């Protein structure tokens, strides 16, 4: 086998317990298992009020009249706010394009859009008051898909667009469009022995984090406000909140409260501005907690997509070309749609060598719920389609689907459709080989001496089969996800690290604004500090805006970028410590000047192991503290016409093998096993790495067989905003998930690591679909697969 990469070697801190590479335990674990960890919905303040949001009951309408007087007159109501009450001229916000009104401005563009705010002394008082706000709507036609968006007489979702994408889109209801053209797809198609076309549909998925949107805004004496909030990116929130409040950023203080999961759904603002407005208006602390119904309207979802693909291949199994068109529904507001388009287009052919491509991806403005970031971010939808295509081409060629993928697998050096070379290990074929080599789960595990155990059969506890109609299927898929923010974004993080000696023992304090959303960043930061500073005692400071931005907890980037920032700050602290040591003791021992010096076990040692002094000696009562920004290699925007450009900084690869059992008569699916092999570069915390892979895999399973927000195409209203009808996998739907972790260093990244969180969400879905196709022989061009699709009763 050719060399495909090598693991990272570590010297500094390699002897320190609890450093990188160990499965240290979460520093917040004890608080989380005792119930003491303070999530954003747990915040409480003497005298606090409850905020409530009145949302639109229709998707697209002009607001003819809005009367709050009756609501305001209710006892216990402290404030009722509408668009007209906003304090400054800045009345919109948005991640990239400020197109989202804080409160509806005479018009609503999607079901559940915020129209008015209430603050009251009890949640029920607030709800009753909100019910007394009179809103009269004049309904407008709804834009719900590409044809209604681009029809000659289409109503514009946003009139008077002036955003930077407007100049290059073919229609005002198209938010952003990214073509990618490389080589000559026509000529290549002429060389193809087989050509396979497919049309695919990807449903709207919800992040369904368990901790609902919530927070507490406390007015401060200086006229500012302190917001305790669950978010993915404190500083991005701050940048959007402060102008709407009419406050300078230093008067809006933000502290990260406990975050009950995120998965992209907390990248946009939800109740942040609303709580602050009510707190500033009433002079009292205001808490807002969405319930699950509201949560379905309170955050963006994964873009539903229509994807058209054409793949060509020669008889010997080499891809000739790919043509594709990906239409993402961005819904009513921009959110992260432009970046999702960039990912979907640039990663649209998957981890394969394809010289000749003709690609187009675009996002619509519509009156459907706004869509934006969710784990996998544009790459998920594409992977579902290109992996289905790869199976179809293999079938046309009469080849084994894994062998066909191996032949076309990219390697280090392969060019992406954007012309960018993949400059780190790309062990695509190896991951497929590994996942295929894992032992298969035994057949008919549901049989026991006492008959069939329904818990292990399709339908589970519902007792639908005792084995009748059950057919096993196996499917494979592999995917590629970019890591970090792409397309020229200045993607950086900041870390403040302090090393001091307390009671004779050295202690490191790590302070970043990184949002810990469950991923285990806080665990890894402590490990990095131990490794880099050779100490065991590390305190992780709460994340807040008293330190520079950490960027978003998304795009699989935090361990890379904020981890990199912590490593960098620790290295600067180490240099400073050694400099102090040299100044104080350099004359006592020549090694201070000549040897490579390390910090190990609270001491300064030479690389030969000789102890030169303790940190207590060097530092005495003088702490060393450094705050520094750190950024990964710069990227470039994609060319607007050709899509060429070095847009990405790193890639993450995972492969899955799904084993399913399908009740072919009832169309019910039991996923029996979902094996994953993933290259992680370097597993800083192996336990967390495996946990991320299993969690991401399960979210991919969800969209394969059950998860979908259903929007009525006639009204653009959401039909299933509840956990009764938006189903996510239970423990009885989730199979065993064996994980094979490969560690091939990316030499450009700290410790050679790769961002890992998203890749497993990509290939999981198409692997499950492939397995269901394998079991049923059906074509299945949409996800999620519903029983109707498997039984011809749709």
């Amino acid at each position, binding site marked *: 086998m050719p060399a495909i990469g090598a693991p990272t070697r570590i010297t500094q801190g390699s002897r320190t317990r609890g450093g990188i590479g160990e499965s240290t335990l979460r520093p917040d674990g004890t608080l989380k298992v005792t119930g003491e960890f303070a999530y954003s919905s747990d915040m409480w303040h003497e005298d606090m009020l409850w905020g409530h949001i009145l949302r639109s009951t229709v998707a697209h309408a002009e607001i003819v009249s809005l009367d709050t007087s009756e609501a305001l007159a209710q006892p216990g109501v402290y404030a009722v706010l509408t668009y007209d009450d906003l304090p400054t001229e800045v009345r919109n916000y948005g991640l990239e394009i400020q197109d989202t009104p804080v409160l509806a401005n005479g018009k609503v563009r999607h079901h559940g859009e915020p129209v008015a705010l209430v603050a009251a002394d009890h949640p029920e008082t607030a709800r009753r008051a909100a019910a007394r706000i009179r809103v009269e709507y004049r309904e407008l036609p709804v834009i719900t898909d590409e044809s209604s968006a681009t029809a000659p007489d289409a109503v514009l979702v946003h009139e008077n667009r002036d955003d930077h994408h407007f100049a290059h889109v073919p229609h005002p209801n198209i938010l952003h469009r990214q073509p990618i053209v490389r080589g000559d797809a026509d000529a290549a198609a002429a060389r193809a022995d087989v050509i396979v076309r497919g049309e695919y549909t990807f449903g709207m998925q919800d992040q369904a984090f368990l901790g609902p949107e919530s927070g507490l805004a406390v007015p401060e004496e200086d006229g500012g406000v302190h917001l305790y909030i669950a978010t993915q990116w404190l500083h991005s929130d701050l940048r959007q909140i402060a102008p709407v409040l009419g406050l300078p950023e230093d008067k809006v203080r933000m502290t990260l409260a406990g975050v009950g999961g995120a998965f992209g759904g907390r990248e946009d603002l939800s109740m942040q501005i609303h709580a602050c407005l009510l707190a500033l208006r009433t002079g009292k602390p205001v808490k807002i907690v969405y319930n699950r119904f509201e949560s379905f309207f309170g955050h963006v979802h994964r873009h539903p997509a229509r994807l058209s693909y054409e793949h060509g291949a020669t008889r010997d199994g080499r891809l000739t070309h790919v043509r594709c068109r990906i239409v993402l529904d961005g819904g009513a507001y921009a959110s992260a749609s432009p970046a999702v388009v960039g990912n979907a287009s640039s990663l649209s052919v998957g981890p394969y060598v394809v010289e000749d491509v003709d690609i187009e991806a675009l996002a619509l403005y519509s009156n459907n719920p706004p869509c934006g970031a969710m784990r996998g971010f544009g790459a998920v939808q594409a992977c579902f389609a290109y992996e289905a295509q790869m199976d179809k081409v293999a079938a046309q060629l009469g080849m084994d689907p894994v062998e066909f993928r191996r032949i076309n697998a990219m390697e280090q050096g392969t060019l992406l459709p954007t012309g960018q070379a993949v400059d780190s290990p790309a062990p695509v074929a190896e991951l497929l080989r590994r996942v295929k080599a894992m032992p298969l789960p035994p057949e008919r595990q549901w049989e026991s001496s006492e008959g069939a155990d329904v818990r292990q059969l399709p339908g589970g506890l519902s007792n639908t089969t005792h084995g009748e109609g059950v057919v096993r299927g196996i499917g494979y898929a592999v995917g590629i996800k970019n890591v970090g923010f792409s397309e020229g974004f200045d993607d950086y993080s900041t870390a403040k690290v302090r090393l001091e000696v307390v009671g004779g023992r050295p202690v490191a304090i790590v302070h970043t604004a990184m949002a810990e959303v469950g991923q285990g960043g806080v665990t890894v930061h402590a490990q990095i500090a131990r490794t880099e500073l050779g100490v065991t005692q590390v305190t992780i400071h709460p994340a807040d805006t008293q330190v520079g931005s950490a960027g978003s907890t998304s795009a699989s980037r935090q361990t890379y970028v904020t981890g990199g920032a912590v490593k960098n700050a620790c290295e600067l602290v180490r240099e400073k410590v050694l400099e102090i040591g040299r100044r104080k003791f350099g004359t006592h021992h020549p090694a201070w000047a000549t040897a490579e010096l390390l910090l190990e076990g609270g001491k300064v040692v030479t690389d030969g192991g000789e102890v030169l002094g303790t940190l207590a000696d060097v530092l005495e009562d003088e702490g060393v503290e450094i705050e520094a920004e750190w950024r990964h290699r710069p990227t470039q925007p994609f060319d607007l016409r050709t899509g060429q450009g070095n847009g990405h900084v790193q890639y993450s690869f995972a492969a899955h093998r799904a084993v399913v059992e399908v009740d072919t008569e009832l169309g019910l699916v039991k996923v029996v096993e979902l094996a994953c092999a993933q290259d992680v570069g370097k597993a800083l915390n192996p336990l967390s790495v495996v946990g991320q892979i299993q969690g991401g895999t399960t979210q991919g399973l969800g969209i394969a067989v059950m998860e979908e927000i259903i929007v009525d195409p006639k009204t653009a209203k959401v039909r299933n905003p509840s956990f009764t*009808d938006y189903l996510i996998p239970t423990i009885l739907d989730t199979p065993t998930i064996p994980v094979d972790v490969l560690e091939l260093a990316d030499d450009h990244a700290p410790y050679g690591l790769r961002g890992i969180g998203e890749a497993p969400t990509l290939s999981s879905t198409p692997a499950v679909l492939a397995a269901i196709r394998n079991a049923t022989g059906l074509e299945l061009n949409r996800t999620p697969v519903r029983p*109707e699709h498997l039984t011809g009763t749709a």
Partner: protein
Amino acid sequence: MDFLRPASWEEALAAKAEHPTAVPIAGGTDVMVEINFDHRRPGHLLDLTRIGDLYDWERGERSVRLGASVPYTRIMSELRADLPGLALAAHTVASPQIRNRGGVGGNLGTASPAGDAHPALLAAGAEVEVASAARGTRMIPIDAFYTGVKRNALEPDELIRAVHVRRADGPQQFSKVGTRNAMVIAVCAFGLALHPETRTVRTGIGSAAPTPVRAAAAEEFLAAALEEGGHWESGKTVPPSVARQFAQLCSGACNPIDDVRGTASYRRHAVGVMARRTLMWTWESYRGARRTTEGAA
């Protein structure tokens, strides 16, 4: 909103007479969802959890008198032999936490076509014991209980005291389709009970019509076919053609709608599949029991 906490059944009936719009709450698994999501603001909540009688069941000669609030968990563990269909249905209700709290009284009170208990009650044969302060107790046959979508035969001043479910005289089965392997509301459900004593068969269909229904034509067809073929005596296998016809008639008894949980067409199809499978399971079990009995004799 007032919260009424009667300490006895008599007090509860008096409260319901005084406040006919009071909403009874026991397990809370329907009512509290409506309150939490602001779908319902009754003037009075009538808490029934202090009335111990509602949590008892008694085995009679022909039937089990099942207190309205006996939680599903106990039905599963204590009544599997007497009420096997209902015990199976209880096992498919929501989650362990809900099964610990909810009881059949709630299912009957809500009368949602998706309630899991209904098909089992219809198949087994049951009467609902209801009472009012003014008129005392009356028994409503289960076949007359469901009157419309989420409507039942209760008068405003009545409360459900118990349900009298016929003790099984033969095998019973229950099957439910949901798009998840646990904690799922029925897309549709099917209950089947063989009654060897009367040589009849009863069915119950959930979530496939405005109310829970029986497939009367299917029951008659199957009973006749079994009789004609001498199956009850011989115990011989039900011919596939009979099973197929039975399944078709069960599908035909459905009057389903398209909704977010499934299409009408799928519901009809799935009820047919479940009818065929539950017939096979119950018949196999009947044959097995006969063989055991004969072997012992």
